[in-house]
């Protein structure tokens, strides 16, 4: 698809700016792709909710799977609905920089743990349920 762009634009619609200007014919083909992605997103949603009712032994596994499915869905939206699959370099560069700082920000909480003065670390208090004797009345 990427070769359809550029200054050598070959159709009326593509003669002007926009990373993915296409002729009516091409757009028609894309419509089928959009519908397919839509179905995939619905299935992804069903899968996410379905997995909620499956109880994995570890919370880490549950979180990983849920975020993996969400990432796949997000990628589909970004690549096809937002046309990132065939974009201009200016946009890719912008997003690469954003991606770097985004990732850095998500890791802040890990780094923050190394910058706490010794002896002042936060230790979660152990969860102690209220004794059974408080029940009734």
């Amino acid at each position, binding site marked *: 698809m990427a070769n359809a*762009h*550029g*200054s050598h634009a070959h159709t009326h*619609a593509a003669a*002007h*700016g*926009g*990373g993915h200007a296409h002729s*009516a014919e091409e*757009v*028609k083909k894309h*419509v089928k792709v*959009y*519908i397919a*992605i*839509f179905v995939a*997103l*619905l299935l992804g*949603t069903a899968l*996410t*909710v379905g997995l*909620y009712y499956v109880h994995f032994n570890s919370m880490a596994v*549950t979180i990983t799977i*849920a*975020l993996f*499915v*969400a990432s796949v869905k*997000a990628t589909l*939206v*970004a690549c*096809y*609905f*937002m046309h990132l699959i065939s974009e*201009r*370099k*200016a*946009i890719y560069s*912008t*997003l690469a*920089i*954003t991606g770097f*700082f*985004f990732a850095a*920000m*998500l890791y802040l*909480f890990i780094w*923050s743990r190394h910058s706490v003065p010794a002896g002042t670390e*936060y230790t*979660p*208090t*152990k*969860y102690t*349920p*209220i*004794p*059974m004797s*408080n*029940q*009734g*009345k």
Partner: protein
Amino acid sequence: MDIPYTTQARPDTGLFNAKLGIWLFLASEVMLFGALFSSYILLRVGADPGTWPHGLLNIPIGTFNTTVLITSSVTVVLAWSALKMGDFAKYRKIQAVTILCALGFVGIKSFEYKDKFTHYEIWMKDGRRVTGHIEGNPWFYTLNKAAAQKVEAITFAPDAHHYAEKWEGHKAFHTELKAEEAAGAHHLPPVKIPVADIKRLSAFVPAHSTYFGIYFTLTALHALHVIGGAAVIFYLWALNKKLWLSDPERYTNRVEVSGLFWHFVDLVWIFLFPVLYLL
């Protein structure tokens, strides 16, 4: 004066200006939501084990709303496709669905919010905790209001389960109702709880807990984006037809740019939904 590069590609970027503009804006949005997601992770990881509220949101409603937003995302791109093919009437029809979906999403979200504003947790002085509803379903009820109204006891319909208590504290309010619980009731019959026995009372609002603090921050910011995006899409759809008639390509580009924003809003929700509702 003509604004340059509204349809023509700028030679150095290869894009019409608004497109690079919206992507730069979306990059800043990624950082905005990223900061909040990062905060969420920090708060979640730092919470005492077993205390993070779980199961307080309505999953079927959340799932339905997710579907609504995904539908609107596909209609946005289909509407743009219709414009690319020169079919304004078809664009109008498809984009109408987008606008309805946007209204639907905000409507459902408001309903969910209202549900939280009228759902309470009570911390008793003896350590018991209970969630449920106050008679008459008041919004944002507080102990201060109870004191101002000189209320001596609150009529409270407890939920059958508590999100964090491992012990069945709720039965404490209904020792005589075991059979009913076995029948799987969500709400137990109301009991009178003396205000003097209550240590803390809070609706499911940001002040309730860290969880609701971050929940409302994230979802309200997202909802504002939905409203803003829908406003732009509506403006182009309803009030901007003269641009289509004078410069169809520029109009189509406007719709595309509004669509890019809309997809981003959808994309954020794709992460918000599992993180807040399911994990």
